[in-house]
């Protein structure tokens, strides 16, 4: 009798595990949805593409995962399901996810000085890894792409003075503030982390670490992550994944770092990723920085970057309209790749229409 009672929770747990969908080699999919809400979503995302002027919204891929199943997928332009698309700054959040695995292996602590793992930073002894994850190194960095190329630190880092050793180039910047005090978005901060990872996991493991730690366990078979000439991953900018594979990282994040029955990343790492940086002030960026992820909530509750999306929405965002949105409360993961050159694309509008099309359509 007592044995029988003991088995019931196990049985329930088992049923629960079976009810949860996870991708195998492929995503399991549902029949493509139709209706006015889907049409409204497509009218926004897939306007006729103007390749001559490159004006307007130019979506390359839109993919929606709900409850671990592929419920919507559409491509445009030259991109298809097999294209490893440039993610630009989504790479930063991928880097943080890779760090999450190393965190689970107890290889570092967030309040460790960054200089412990990247000695050229010894001029800045107060700078911690957490400060770098918050884009709050205090280094005097100028993050502009096309509009101010002369003084853009990021253009110099990627293409000219910094391209051989991006972390060293970043570490050579002076400070404008003590570390940890002020948010200033910086691709340099991300590449300092990418360089620190080399010491954290050891140079012998480093070149394969994103694959062994993250991509392989998730079943991601074709990822590219470019390095600079010193062998440091361009953690700020140069990871390439198919939309379907990026969605796997989204599902990992949606489910608090768990992949199947394995807790790949500790829950407290996910909590750090999703915790708003308290020193962020309204207007400093288009969304609220967490630990190298972007959030729809801030310590100051009046700040809601995407008012039509739930407050628990978080995202990895990249240049020219790349986005990985995760909405745990709606059990949604959305990948949007694009080639937007004029900044007219709005995250809130896409999220609003995606919520209308998908939220509440599947009951658990």
């Amino acid at each position: 009798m007592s044995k029988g009672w003991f088995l019931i929770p196990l049985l329930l747990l088992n049923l629960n595990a079976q009810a949860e969908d996870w991708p195998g080699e492929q995503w399991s999919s549902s029949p493509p949805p139709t209706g006015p809400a889907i049409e409204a979503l497509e009218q926004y995302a897939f306007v006729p593409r103007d390749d001559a002027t490159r004006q307007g919204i130019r979506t390359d891929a839109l993919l929606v995962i709900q409850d671990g199943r592929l419920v919507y997928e559409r491509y445009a332009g030259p991109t298809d399901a097999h294209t490893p698309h440039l993610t630009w700054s989504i790479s930063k959040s991928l880097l943080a996810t890779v760090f999450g695995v190393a965190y689970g292996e107890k290889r570092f602590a967030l309040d460790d000085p960054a200089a412990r793992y990247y000695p050229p930073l010894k001029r800045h002894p107060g700078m911690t890894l957490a400060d770098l994850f918050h884009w709050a190194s205090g280094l005097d960095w100028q993050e502009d792409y096309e509009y101010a190329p002369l003084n853009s630190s990021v253009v110099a880092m990627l293409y000219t003075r910094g391209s051989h050793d991006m972390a060293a180039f970043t570490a050579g910047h002076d400070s404008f503030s003590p570390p940890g005090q002020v948010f200033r978005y910086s691709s340099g901060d991300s590449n300092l982390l990418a360089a620190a990872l080399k010491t954290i996991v050891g140079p012998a493991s480093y070149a394969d670490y994103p694959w062994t730690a993250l991509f392989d366990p998730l079943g991601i078979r074709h990822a590219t992550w470019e390095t600079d000439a010193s062998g440091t991953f361009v953690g700020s900018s140069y990871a390439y994944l198919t939309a379907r594979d990026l969605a796997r990282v989204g599902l990992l994040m949606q489910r608090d770092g768990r992949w199947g029955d394995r807790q790949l990343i500790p829950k407290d790492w996910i909590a750090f990723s999703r915790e708003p940086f308290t020193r962020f002030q309204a207007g400093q960026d288009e969304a609220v920085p967490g630990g190298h992820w972007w959030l729809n909530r801030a310590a100051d509750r009046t700040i809601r970057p995407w008012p039509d999306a739930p407050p628990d929405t978080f995202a990895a965002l990249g240049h020219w309209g790349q986005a990985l949105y995760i909405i745990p409360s709606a059990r949604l993961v959305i990948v949007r790749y694009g080639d937007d050159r004029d900044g007219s694309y709005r995250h809130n509008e896409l999220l609003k229409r995606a919520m209308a099309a998908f939220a509440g359509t599947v009951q658990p």
Partner: protein
Amino acid sequence: MMRKVSLTLMAVLLVALFGWVWQERVALRAFPGIISAYTAKEYCSCRYVMQQPAEYCRGYVKQSVPTNDFLDTPEAKRITVSGLGRSHSARWMGERQGCRLE
């Protein structure tokens, strides 16, 4: 009198200009290299990492600043681009490593 004022003004502007050039000397020296490096690197990744058609990739990397020479060597997966008097090459290193400026 007017002439003296304009000469003084000119001198002040020249000093300011030289001051600015001196202050920005590092960035100014690197500046002409941006377009060829950008085009070589991003074309290489478009063509050999994202595996897009050559014609699409030429449009993808197009910027308002023109480039003059463009050489893609498909056997070596290497691209050399010149523009504003500078030349840069990028090469595909492998499936995981993608492209890198040389």
